[in-house]
C-alpha cells in the first residue's frame, strides 16, 4: 500500500492518501498479531507439511481479500464491504470484473491500488512473499504449490519466485514504455499517458482486465493500443517455465511446447469460427473491424484477460448463441499453467487430448505392442494414466463449478446464455461481462462469484484442503461436546 500512498501524495490527493494510511495501520496491526502467533513457524521450529502448505495459501488469500478491501471501502466508491471484497478478489484472481462505482472519477492512488492488486495477484501473493520477505519460510514450496503454481524454474523455490518477478519486471519496463509512447501518440498528455500505460500494462500482463475507465480498451479508440495489449496478454498467458527456458537460450521451446501448440490450435479454431459466423451474419464485414472486435475479444477471453473491445450487451445482442458459446469455450480453456492466466489451462487440454489419442492407438494396435506416449513441456514427460487422470479431474472440477454458477444465475432470473457467459467468465478468471455483473445483483450471486474466482484461481486443491480442515475441526468439536 506504500506505492498507492506515494502516488496519492505526488498527485496531491489528500483524502485517498489518508485512506491508505489507515489501511496500512490496520494491516500492520493484523500482521504483527499473526507474526506473534506464528513465531515458532517463522523460526523454523515447526515443519509445514503439504496439508498446511495448501491451507496457508488458501487462508492468505481470504485474509488479504479483507485487508485489501479497506481502501475501497474508505474511498466511498463501493456500496458495501461485499462489493469491496468482490473487486479485490477480482483483482487478485486477475478476473477483472468490477463493482466499483463511478470508475472514471476515482483517484490515481486507488487506480494504482486496483492495478497493483491484479499485477501482484497474477504473479501470486505467496510468490511475492517468498521473493522479498523473510529469510527462511518453513514449507515454502508447499505454499507455492498451494497457489496453483507447480513449476520449479530453479532448484530453490525462493530463487524460482524471484525469477518469476524478474521476468515480470522486465516486461513491466518494456510494456509500460510501449503503451506510454502509444498513449502520447493518440493525444494523451505525458503524465496521464504514463499512468494509463502502466495500468494497462499491469492488467494486460497479468491477464487481469481492469482499466482506469469504464469503457475499458474502447476508451483509447486505437488499433495500435489494441495490438500492443494483445501481444502483452498473449505473452502474459504463457507459462513462466516457458519464459525462463527461452531466456536460457532454448528458443525451440516456443514451438515444441504442448501448451503453446494447444493454445494456438484452440485459439485459431475458435477465432476462425467466430469470424466466419459474424461476417456471414453481417455484423462485422471488413477485416479490420473483424480483427478488432472478434479476434481481439476471443483472444482476450482465451488468455483470460477480459479487455473488451465491444460493450457488454453487444455480446448478447449481436453475437448470438453460437458466438456466446464460442466465447464460453475460450474462457473455460484459458491460458497456460503456472502463468498469470486462469481457466483449466492449455496444458491439461493437451494432456487429456493426447491421453484419448493414446488410448485409441492402444486399442487399434496389436496386444503385444507396448506404446510409451510422451509430451513435451520444457522437457519430455511420459504420458502415464495418473497424469491424464489428474488433468481430467481438474477439468471436471471446473465444469462442475461452471454448471453450479450458471444454475445460480438462471435461478435469479437471468437468461441461460447470459448466466453461462458470466459463469465462464468468473470460473475462468476472465473478466468479460455480458451485463450480469452489477452492484445491483443479488448478494448470493456476488458471494458465489467471489467463490468461483477464488476456486478457479487456486485450482481447487488448496480450497478443498481448507474446507476439509474446517469440517474436520467442526466434527472434532461436535464429538468433544
Amino acid at each position, binding site marked *: 500500500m506504500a506505492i498507492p500512498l506515494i502516488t496519492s501524495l505526488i498527485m496531491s490527493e489528500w483524502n485517498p492518501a489518508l485512506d491508505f494510511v489507515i489501511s496500512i495501520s490496520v494491516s500492520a496491526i493484523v500482521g504483527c498479531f499473526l507474526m506473534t502467533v506464528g513465531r515458532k513457524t517463522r523460526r523454523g521450529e515447526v515443519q509445514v507439511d503439504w496439508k498446511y502448505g495448501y491451507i496457508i495459501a488458501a487462508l492468505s488469500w481470504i485474509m488479504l481479500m479483507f485487508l485489501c478491501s479497506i481502501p475501497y471501502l474508505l474511498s466511498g466508491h463501493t456500496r458495501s464491504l461485499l462489493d469491496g471484497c468482490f473487486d479485490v478478489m477480482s483483482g487478485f484472481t486477475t478476473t477483472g470484473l468490477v463493482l466499483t462505482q463511478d470508475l472514471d472519477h476515482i483517484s490515481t492512488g486507488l487506480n494504482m491500488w486496483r492495478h497493483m492488486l491484479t499485477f501482484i495477484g497474477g504473479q501470486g501473493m505467496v510468490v511475492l512473499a517468498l521473493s522479498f520477505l523473510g529469510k527462511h519460510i518453513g514449507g515454502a514450496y508447499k505454499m507455492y504449490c498451494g497457489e496453483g503454481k507447480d513449476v520449479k524454474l530453479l532448484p530453490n523455490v525462493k530463487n524460482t519466485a524471484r525469477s518469476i518477478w524478474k521476468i515480470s519486471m522486465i516486461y513491466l519496463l*518494456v510494456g509500460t514504455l510501449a503503451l506510454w509512447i502509444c498513449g502520447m501518440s493518440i493525444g494523451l498528455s505525458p503524465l496521464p499517458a504514463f499512468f494509463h500505460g502502466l495500468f494497462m500494462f499491469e492488467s494486460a500482463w497479468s491477464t487481469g482486465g481492469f482499466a482506469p475507465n469504464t469503457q475499458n480498451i474502447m476508451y483509447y479508440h486505437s488499433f495500435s493500443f489494441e495490438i500492443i495489449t494483445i501481444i502483452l496478454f498473449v505473452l502474459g498467458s504463457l507459462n513462466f517455465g516457458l519464459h525462463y527456458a527461452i*531466456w536460457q537460450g532454448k528458443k525451440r521451446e*516456443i514451438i515444441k511446447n504442448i501448451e503453446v501448440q494447444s493454445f494456438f490450435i484452440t485459439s485459431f479454431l475458435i477465432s476462425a469460427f467466430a*469470424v466466419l459466423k459474424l461476417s456471414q451474419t453481417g455484423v462485422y464485414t471488413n477485416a479490420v473491424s*473483424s480483427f478488432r472486435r472478434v479476434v481481439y475479444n476471443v483472444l482476450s477471453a482465451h488468455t483470460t484477460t477480459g479487455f473488451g473491445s465491444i460493450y457488454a450487451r453487444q455480446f448478447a445482442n449481436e453475437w448470438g448463441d453460437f458466438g456466446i458459446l464460442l466465447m464460453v469455450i475460450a474462457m473455460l480453456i484459458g491460458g497456460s499453467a503456472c502463468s498469470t492466466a486462469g481457466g483449466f489451462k492449455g496444458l491439461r487440454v493437451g494432456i487429456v487430448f493426447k491421453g484419448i489419442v493414446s488410448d485409441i492407438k492402444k486399442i487399434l494396435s496389436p496386444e503385444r505392442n507396448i506404446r510409451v506416449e510422451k509430451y513435451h513441456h520444457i522437457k519430455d514427460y511420459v504420458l502415464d494414466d495418473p497424469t491424464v487422470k489428474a488433468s481430467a479431474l481438474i477439468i471436471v472440477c471446473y465444469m462442475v463449478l461452471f454448471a453450479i454458477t450458471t444454475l445460480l444465475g438462471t435461478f435469479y432470473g437471468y437468461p441461460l446464455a447470459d448466466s453461462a457467459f458470466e459463469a465462464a467468465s468468473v470460473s475462468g478468471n476472465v473478466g468479460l461481462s455480458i451485463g450480469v455483473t452489477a452492484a445491483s445483483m443479488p448478494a448470493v450471486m456476488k458471494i458465489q462469484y467471489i467463490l468461483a474466482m477464488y476456486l478457479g484461481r487456486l485450482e481447487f486443491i488448496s480450497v478443498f484442503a481448507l474446507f476439509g480442515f474446517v469440517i474436520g475441526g467442526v466434527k472434532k468439536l461436535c464429538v468433544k461436546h
Partner: protein
Amino acid sequence: MRKRKNEIMGLLTEVLSAVLYCGVFFALTFLAVR
C-alpha cells in the same frame, strides 16, 4: 555476459513470436472475411 545475451535474445524471440502470432491471426481474419 552470455547469460545476459541469452536473456535479451529470449525477450526478443518472445516479443517477435507474439507479433508474428498477431500477424497470422490478422491474415487469417482477412482471408475469412474476404
